[in-house]
């Protein structure tokens, strides 16, 4: 969808909006400030020392403490969590996209007995909340020795991301021309070569869309990590940042805490800025089609 279409086709002569425009604009601005101001406050606080956080809530500091960031990274170990999160997110996304697109491709391209049932089972998973199965899952992981390690966490992440991923990718693979795959078969390629060499490259837009949403889903995931991971050195960012705040009884390095919050938000902000259009469209596309 082009930007034009989103904002209304300029060729049609809709009257500009006119509910006495001034109050309407005022409301838009006020809400934008409500959304943005906490971030501004966060950015201004992340360069203050603990005393200044208390004494000067409004103004940015005149003596920026850039050392809040190295302290957040090292001493309160946000750095470790960051690296852990990058690792877990990258590995999970690789497997989700690989396994998910293989399944979606099979469901979209081949006609076989039980296809409808299988597809419904996969996609229907989106209706089931994580917490319904969380205790049995925990007990199963305990039995399999998959608690408190990344094999367990990543396996679970992949499994729980499959319904959405297959939903998006099946829809996408359906739109791709099958003639290409047929041509590849005639040229003597194996099914996997056809999939990997021919279908995957043209499926890139679909993979990107599924990838973006899985990135946010995994990077921000909290409850499953909370249940599965226990050791501090394995904490992902959400676990790390939550534990900092929930155990703040002891004397707190507030400046560094604000700094770590900034560190957590930066990757999401960057991905959002780059893929804003896809995110906005993708967010609702599924909902509107379904």
């Amino acid at each position: 969808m082009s930007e034009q279409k989103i904002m209304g086709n300029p060729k049609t002569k809709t009257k500009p909006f006119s509910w006495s425009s001034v109050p309407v604009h005022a409301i838009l601005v006020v809400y934008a400030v409500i959304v943005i101001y906490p971030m501004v406050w966060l950015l201004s606080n992340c360069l203050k020392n603990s005393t200044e956080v208390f004494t000067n809530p409004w103004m940015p500091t005149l003596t920026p403490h850039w050392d809040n960031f190295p302290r957040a990274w090292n001493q309160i170990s946000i750095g470790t969590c960051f690296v852990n999160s990058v690792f877990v997110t990258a590995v999970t996304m690789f497997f989700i996209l690989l396994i998910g697109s293989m399944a979606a491709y099979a469901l979209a391209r081949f006609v076989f007995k039980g296809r409808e049932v299988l597809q419904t089972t996969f996609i229907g998973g989106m209706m089931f909340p994580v917490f319904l199965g969380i205790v049995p899952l925990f007990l199963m992981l305990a039995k399999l020795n998959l608690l408190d390690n990344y094999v367990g966490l990543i396996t679970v992440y992949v499994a729980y991301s499959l319904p959405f991923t297959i939903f998006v990718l099946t829809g996408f693979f359906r739109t791709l021309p099958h003639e290409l795959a047929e041509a590849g078969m005639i040229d003597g390629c194996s099914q996997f070569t056809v999939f990997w060499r021919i279908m995957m490259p043209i499926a890139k837009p679909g993979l990107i869309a599924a990838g973006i949403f899985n990135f946010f889903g995994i990077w921000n995931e909290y409850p499953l990590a909370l249940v599965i991971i226990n050791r501090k050195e394995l904490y992902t960012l959400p676990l790390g940042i939550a534990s900092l705040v929930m155990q703040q009884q002891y004397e707190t390095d507030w400046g560094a805490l604000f700094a770590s919050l900034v560190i957590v938000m930066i990757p999401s902000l960057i991905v959002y800025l780059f893929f804003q259009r896809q995110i906005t469209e993708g967010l609702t596309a599924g909902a509107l089609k379904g």
Partner: protein
Amino acid sequence: MKRSTNTKLTVVGFLAPAGLLYGIFFVLPMAQAFYYSLFRWRGLSQNKEFIGLQNFRDLANDGIFWMAMKHNLTFMVASMLVIIPLALFFAYVLSRKVPGASGYRAVFLFPNVISIVAVAVLWSFAYNMRFGLINAFLKLVGLERYTAGWLGDPHTALPAVIATSIWYCLGFYIVLFLAGIQSIPTSFYEAASLDGATQWQSFRHVTIPLVWEILRLGVVYIIIQTMNVFGLVWVMTEGGPSNHTETMLTYLYRKAFAESQYGYGTALGVVVFLLVLTITMLITRIMKREVVEY
């Protein structure tokens, strides 16, 4: 013949990894939940004792559970009352030619992509009694007597958490409704305005009926989201002060993972699931209208 076995093998091979992972780690635990909820099962031992529906009876007599459910329902109703009108208003305004509309949309959606944990932490700082943004603002505008220790005060804790949740997700509903409104052909509005309809009339009689299905979808999302709220509450208050922000899932987490009452916790998960299903079905039935085809 050869080709069909080949195809069969391909299908199996392509589906096997996803099918196995999904079957073992997703479908199985969800199915087991209904079974485990019938047991008394404490600690990691294998000693589980079949007790039928006793867990559910215990839940019915558990004051904290009812309190938690009341909080979830408050959460749900408050969210609907605030989100639906606000999101519809913003979506309608942004769908008309407002200067900077795509910028506003980008800003409004932003909280939705941050980790819910980061949002919870940011706002628990903002609510902080001593250095928080909210109290500082109240002092600035001369409302000092309204300053509070928001999250520590039983009267203000739940509203404070709900406000944070709305701040977090309003953008999503704006974008959802916006997409719906934009799919309405502009000729409908032109026809309405030729007939002399005011902005309000065309909103009321063109926009609302044509986005009704998406409105209904929005309501269902709100139900699912508020009945399953966990991370936000857990990080901001851990259900406190003294259960005043306890929700069904924070209580489940506490029971299952702090007190190792696995059977009881699972039963709670089943109840939440069935409750969401029931409310969703009721609301979709209540909101059922003739779909306007266009």
